[in-house]
């Protein structure tokens, strides 16, 4: 997966590049709009991460020119300004998602993966499996090591999210939005509690432990 980042702020650019590279992506970095547009038009990227405020050529202009030249790769906008008009304008120009600075890297990574997954829908599998943990979407059943586990509807949705995106660190905000449709950060430890309960059912009595807390970032489910 090849990602192009167009970002003029040196530290932001460097860390985004490093973070994505360490997550297994091939990353190119452009420091201004003109270079970014050139790379985007000539290269073959699966995703474009575009800062709105760029020297030379703004993010809007880059996106507009890019779309006119027939490039259809998904675009994730980054901006320091959170204005409804900006958001609408970005989406009208064909941006696929929008992140307002400051944002958590885990949130950024989750959005990147969602965008890359989009369009490659294919067949959604009806059964998920990580190590000896099995989740049957049709019959809505969960079993570990062949032993049936009873989950509430929300616990099931939470586990499904973690298993579908196994190996990815999921930030709390993403979990809240995907499982409960709450699009804001709660200032309570509600996600921790929900997670603890899920682990009590799925992990506590079993080895190895599959769900892991990544402090300061979120949660990940993966086979060790």
């Amino acid at each position, binding site marked *: 997966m090849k990602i192009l980042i167009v970002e003029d702020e040196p530290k932001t650019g460097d860390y985004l590049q490093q973070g994505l590279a360490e997550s297994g992506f091939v990353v190119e970095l452009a420091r201004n709009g003109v270079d970014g547009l050139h790379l985007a038009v000539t290269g073959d990227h699966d995703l474009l991460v575009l800062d709105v405020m760029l020297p030379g050529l703004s993010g809007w202009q880059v996106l507009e020119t890019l779309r006119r030249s027939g490039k259809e790769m998904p675009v994730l906008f980054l901006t320091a300004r959170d204005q*409804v008009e900006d958001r609408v304008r970005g989406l009208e120009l064909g941006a696929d998602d929008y992140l307002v600075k400051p944002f958590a890297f885990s949130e950024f990574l989750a959005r990147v993966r969602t965008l890359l997954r989009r369009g490659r829908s294919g067949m959604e599998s009806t059964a998920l499996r990580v190590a000896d943990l099995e989740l049957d979407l049709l019959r809505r059943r969960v079993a570990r090591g062949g032993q049936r586990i009873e989950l509430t509807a*929300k616990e099931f949705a939470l586990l499904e999210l973690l298993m579908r995106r196994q190996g990815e660190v999921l930030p709390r905000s993403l979990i809240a939005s995907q499982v409960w449709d709450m699009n804001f950060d*709660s200032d*309570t430890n509600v996600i921790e509690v929900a997670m603890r309960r899920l682990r009590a059912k799925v992990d506590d009595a079993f080895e190895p432990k599959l769900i892991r807390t990544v402090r300061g970032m979120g949660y990940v489910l993966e086979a060790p």
Partner: protein
Amino acid sequence: MIARLSLTARLTLLFTLGSGAVLLALGGLVGGAIERHFEELDRAELTGKLQHAQHLIAQVDSLAQLERLSVPLGDAFLAHHDLLVQVLGPDQQVLLATPDAQFPSRLQVLETDLALAPLWTWSQDGKNYRGLAATFPTAMGTQVQVAMAIDSEHHDAFLRTLQRSLWLFVACAALLMGLLGWFAARRGLAPLRSMREQAAAVTAHSLDRRLPAQAVPAELADLAATLNEMLERLEEAFRRLSDFSSDLAHELRTPISNLMMQTQVALSRPRDADSYRAILESNAEEFERLARMIADMLFLAKAENGLAIVQDEPVDLAREVRDLFDFYEALADERHIVLALMGDGMVQGDRLMLRRALNNLLSNALRHTPPGGRVTVTIVRQEGQLLLRVENTGETIPAQHLDRLFERFYRVDPARQHAAGEGTGLGLAITQAILRAHRGAVSAASESGLTVFTLRFPY
């Protein structure tokens, strides 16, 4: 154009025009009265002379006497040099006439009754005449026509002089009145100028200044009071703004200083990887909190400026509450808190914002409900409003804090500012801003172990 004239100029102009008009009318009235008076004088004089002629004519009892009538008539009337006389006998023969007597022909229509005879006026050779004519019978029964006129020149001259002086007087008086008006306007408007000076002295640093509403005339007192109210609102808004900036700086200072210290201490000597990891993890949590605070503040700023209402759709409050209960179910369950919902209701607004407002109240209630407690949400219609009450058991909030709960960064216990599990201190302020943006209100009450937050929506 008149709107641009100064008040003083306007009042002066109105004074001048007004007094000029009044004086002109008065002058016209006086002039007219004098002229009528002169007419009556002339008429009385002519009537006297005609009566004299009548008397002489009435004594004529023979043709010889008629022919000699010119003698007594001449004696009686020819001596007056500004009197025109013409006496015609029964056969229209001239019995007596002053040399230049030329009476207009309409004077020949003669009345026998003097009191009814009209007074004629005409000009001749540059002179103005008033004339009276009548027919008198002689003792023989024949008719004698008598017409007399007097030159009204001296009266006219007097009138002309009077008119000239009246004009002059009116002009001077109008000017004088204008001057007086200007002076009065300046004096009368002096309080306005002093208000202007006081208002000019109000700056951002002296917003506590007020205009002297008591010391100005009644007409201006209202204006002064209104301006004072405006100043009060400005002062309040300004105070909030500067409080906000200093609160903000303060709120950011503590976590940033912690982060700085922690990082510098960590760097001061080599450590093992686990220590570095622990420090970075702790930093990440702190940064996340800061990011959330910034997002909250931006949201608050937008909501308070009415920029955030994106949607105006029907929102089912009960459904939103149930969704939030779903979200908090695990948390409540773990702490043995019962969540209950009663009633339902629809409001118009932005669903995401309203959900956020409700979430802030619920998370706040959950945070302050002790294990084994209860959080009850009630939706009722009351007095034309839709009320949503979030009620939780727990420590009573002292009354002096209740109103201030909705201020940004206000905490009942300042020591808990950075305690784990505490919010950014903006939740209730955001709730209030969202409610205001929906033309609603939020209030808090707390007594005997029960705290209630009430959202009021216009219904």
